[in-house]
Each structure stands twice: as structure tokens, then as C-alpha cells.
């Protein structure tokens, strides 16, 4: 009888410890369920923001020193490139002064933001751009002299547009938001940001 109880107890302990040894997939599913129950929609931020697309799912796994395999990275980049919508007029350069305003503003898409108000891209949060703005972040590389260093060519304008539109098309699992793909910026706003980077008169190239 004693042995029986001990065995049962051992099974119990084993069962309870096994219950915590979740596989990676189980942990993902559990974490998502916990998040869905822990967030509530507010304003424009609905719960569907927790529904990941394939890129988000994949990039949530290759973290903490685990690097994304080359073939997977190439696949993501190819898929994301195919999603880029280019301007119908094939013109990429807007107004750099507007671009500077967009680069300075972090407004938009937060649950307390007015969805009707203009949004920003907050470029300075992560990048150096003009020489005059000293309050810039370092999560992304410096973009000072972006056009001057690369040449003021139509190809480079198109590349800048594509990169702002969908950063994942060129660097899988980049930290940079997909401003066009996810509707953070309008086409006209992206052109303004491209002008900030590519207009020879922009302070970025001075």
C-alpha cells in the first residue's frame, strides 16, 4: 500500500513537472492565448494586432542569438519584395521639408492616438539624419548624407522608397517597421521621407 501511494505520488510529481515542460510550439500557443486574454481593444488598436503574419511569426523565433538561416531570410525578402506597391506615376521624390516633419513625429497607431490625425515615422528615434538634430537614436544606422554617399540616382530613389515601404524586403527580421506595407504612412508621405533622404537640398545631404 505504502509503495502504491509513493508510486502514485511520484507519478503525480512527474505529471505536474511534465505539464510545465512545454514544447516550443505549445509555449507559442499558450503565450498567444494568454496575450489574447490579457489585452483589450482600445481605439484603433484592436485585438487582431496580436494575429501575426508569417514574417512576424518567423522573426519571433530567431531571437536571443539564434540567427535566421540564409534560405529562410532570402524567402522572406523575396515574399516581402513582391508585396511592395510602387507609385503609379513612378515618381519617388516628395517634399523634404514635409519629410523632416514626418521623421520627427512619433504619432500614430497607438491606442491613444486619434486615427484621423497625421501620423509620423519617428525616423529620428532610431537613426541619425540631419546634422542639426542631435536627439537621435542608434537602433538603426546613421542615414546622414544618405543620398550624397550613394548617388542621387533614380535607382537609389526607388530603393529608398522600397526600403521605407517594406524594410523586410531587404533585411529579413529587421527591426524597422514596414511603413507602407502596414499603412503607417501614405504613398505621399513615403515620397516626402524619400526626399528627406535623397533630395540634394535636404539637410540630410548637407
Amino acid at each position, binding site marked *: 500500500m505504502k509503495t502504491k501511494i509513493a508510486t502514485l505520488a511520484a507519478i503525480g510529481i512527474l505529471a*505536474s*513537472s511534465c*505539464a*510545465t515542460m*512545454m514544447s516550443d510550439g505549445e*509555449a*507559442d500557443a*499558450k*503565450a*498567444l492565448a*494568454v*496575450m489574447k*486574454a*490579457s*489585452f*483589450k*481593444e*482600445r481605439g484603433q*488598436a*484592436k*485585438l487582431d*494586432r*496580436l*494575429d*501575426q503574419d508569417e*514574417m*512576424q511569426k518567423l*522573426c*519571433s*523565433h530567431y*531571437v*536571443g542569438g539564434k540567427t535566421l538561416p540564409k534560405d529562410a531570410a532570402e524567402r522572406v525578402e523575396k515574399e516581402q519584395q513582391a508585396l511592395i506597391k510602387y507609385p503609379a506615376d513612378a515618381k519617388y521624390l516628395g517634399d523634404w521639408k514635409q519629410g523632416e516633419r514626418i521623421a520627427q513625429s512619433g504619432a500614430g*497607431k*497607438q*491606442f*491613444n492616438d486619434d486615427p484621423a490625425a497625421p501620423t509620423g515615422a519617428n525616423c*529620428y*528615434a*532610431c537613426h541619425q539624419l540631419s546634422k542639426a538634430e*542631435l*536627439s*537621435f*537614436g*542608434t*537602433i538603426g544606422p546613421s542615414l546622414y548624407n544618405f543620398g550624397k554617399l550613394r548617388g542621387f540616382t533614380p535607382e537609389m530613389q526607388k530603393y529608398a522608397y522600397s526600403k521605407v515601404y517594406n524594410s*523586410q524586403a531587404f533585411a529579413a527580421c529587421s*527591426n524597422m*517597421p*514596414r511603413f507602407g506595407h*502596414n*499603412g*503607417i504612412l501614405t504613398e505621399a508621405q513615403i515620397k516626402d521621407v524619400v526626399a528627406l533622404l535623397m533630395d540634394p537640398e535636404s539637410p540630410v545631404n548637407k
Partner: protein
Amino acid sequence: MNRIQRLAAGLCVLALASGVSAQQRTTVEEIERYRAALGDGNPAELWEARGEGLWKEARGPKKASLEQCDLGLGPGLVKGAYTVLPKYFADSAKVEDLESRLVTCMVTLQGFTPEQAKKNPFGGPGQKSDIEALVAFVTAQSRGIKMNVAANHPAEQAAYDIGKKIFYFRGGPHDFSCASCHGADSQRIRLQDLPNLTKLADAQRAYTAWPAYRVSQGEVRSFQWRLYDCFRQQRFPELEFTSEASVALTMFLAKNANGGVFDAPSIKR
């Protein structure tokens, strides 16, 4: 001058200082100015004092104080309690961080409904938060003590694993996760230094400095608030106060800070 008067005087200096061409100075310089203006006084002491009053006062339908609340080291033991949280509690059968534990005690000991206990989780103009004051009081009693989150119970381990998943979860219109800003060394957002919460030294330094008196907001902010506002900027929906995800993420961050000497409520910009 007594302590409170000194603090009030410090706050006046602050209010004046912040009006003068603040934009021309860098954030770092501003922080130094604030610190100098405050001298050795941290306005969080006002919250700590109010929190101590709330802790000892007989309140709620049961007209009881919180003094018999078990914060993880046993009923009534406050000193060092914050350094072992979050923790699994058998009575509630849940892993709880400090804020959720306070809610549990307000319900079980004082007879408040959970809704009443969670009212005003974060203070703002014209609405004081009792929870933030209690958090200031309780955490201050762990100052100088090393973080020591056990996470041995299966439920605690599960919370840690889920918290880790949440930390790396990319979502929303900006594709952000916690790790977007807190996963690499020596980075800044604008001029603000960002701790790499996946590295021991940074994780310890960051976690042991919360809660904090936020000069820019004039409020003591709890760790629950820190997570709530990070997710807002991450463009996620609204994180519910003391939700399972918030506690799991806190478990991940608190355990990663083990060994760090707790030193809060602190003062931040």
C-alpha cells in the same frame, strides 16, 4: 524644514526649472538638472508615506488593514518581499506580482470587490492611485536587498516561459516586440539609453530601478505601468492591469534580474 517641506520646495524648484527653454537642453542635461534640484530628496517618499498609511489603515467592508497580507515571505512580512516576486500563491492558486497580490489582499482581507481594488491603477491629474502608493511603500522596504525570484514551482516556470515568448513576440502595425528596443547592447531611442534586457547587468540595473518617480509625469509609476506604457508605444492593444501576460512578462524580467541589488523607488526623467 521637515522632509515633506523640503520635498515640496524641491518640487517648486523643479516646476520653475522645467519652464526655461527646456527644448534647448538635451534630455541628459535635463535629468542632471532635475537631480541637482532635488538634492537627496525623491518625491517618491510622499507616495511611500501615503502607501504606509493605506497599508495600516482599516479599510473596506471588512474594516481591516493590509498588515496581515502575505506578500510572499509570510503574513505581515514586508521587508524584502518585493525581491521574491512574482511568486506562486497557493491561496489564490496563481502566480502574482506585487500589484496583483495587493489586489488579492484587498479582496480577501478588506472585502473589496476586484473591480474596486483595481480602480485607478495609475495616478493622473485629479485621481490618486492607492495601488501606486502601496507599491511605493512595499518596494521601498526592499531597498538594498538582492533580487531573489525562485521560479521553482511549475506554475512559476510556466509563467517564465510564457513571459519569454511575450518578450520576443513581434506584432502590430509596427512589427515591434519588447526585444526591438531591449534586445541589443548600448542602443538609444532618441537620447534615451535602452537597457538590453537579455543581458544580466542591464537586466539587473533596469529592473531594480522600478518603480520610479517620473519627473515628467509627477507620479510614481509601478512596474505594471512600465509594461502598460511600453505596449502602448509598441502599438499593441491595451494591456489589462494585473493580467496574466503582464505577470508572466514581469516574471521573465524579474528572474533575469536575480542577484541585482534592489534600489527603488528611484527617480527618472
